[in-house]
């Protein structure tokens, strides 16, 4: 990819996936990786930070003898996602004006 993913964008990607469905770390990573080439090591810090900021919460669900930690978007997370989407639209428009 020509351009780098900035921190806010990764937040938006994560929150957007969670908006559709609760999911766990592995699936979340695979979903995002399908579209954007991120490194696996990038995701945990984003999840931890969003959790600290109360944009998402976690719950555990046992699966086949082990545990899966699910992530779920919160009300605050939905607001944050909207804010990030608006920001992206603005950003897109500004850049488009310059480079086209």
């Amino acid at each position, binding site marked *: 990819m020509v351009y780098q993913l900035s921190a806010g964008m990764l937040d938006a990607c994560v929150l957007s996936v969670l908006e559709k469905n609760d999911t766990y770390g592995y699936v979340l990573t695979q979903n995002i990786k399908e579209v954007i080439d991120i490194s*696996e090591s990038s995701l945990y*810090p984003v999840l931890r930070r969003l959790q600290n900021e109360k944009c998402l919460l976690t719950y555990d669900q046992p699966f086949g003898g082990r*545990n899966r930690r699910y992530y779920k978007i919160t009300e605050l997370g939905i607001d944050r996602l909207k804010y990030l989407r608006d920001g992206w639209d603005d950003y897109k428009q500004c850049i488009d004006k310059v480079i086209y």
Partner: protein
Amino acid sequence: MTKDSYLKELRDNLYQIPQEEVNNIIQYYAEYFDEAGADNVQNVIRDLGSPKQLADKVTADYFGGNMPEVELKSKKHINVWLIVAAVLGAPLWIPLVLAALIVALALVIVMFALVVSFGAIVLACAIGGVVMSFASFAVMFSDAATGILLLGIGLVCLSITILMVFATIGIVILIKKLYALIFKKNRNVEG
């Protein structure tokens, strides 16, 4: 490298982070390995990077730019040049360290001496004051003037006693505070 040895090394390298958070981190990546499946362990390791690299990344994010210590080259390997410098500089720093230790010892002795001498004064004045006061009563009836004098001296001694008791308590508190200051400072340095 196996999943378990990877996770162990990762945990070791997360030494700067509080235990509770470390447990969360390890749980996340252990789960990641499990979901990827036993066949994919090497792929996951390749994608995650070495345990040290991953730990550095997670640690840097955790502290958000306010790292508690400057990134060490490697905690386990000792720098050879450091040893060479230490040996060559020994004639300089050994006497300096000794001098510093002796000064510290002298300070301790002084403080101890202060407490002891204050205590001695308290004791002397207390005993003197009581004895004087009683003696004054004995003389009072034969020689009133002397009796009053002795009583006066005795009471003065007793009041000095009280003052010195407060002074001694003050010195002890001061010493305790200095002690705490010195050892609190040391703890900060060790981080």
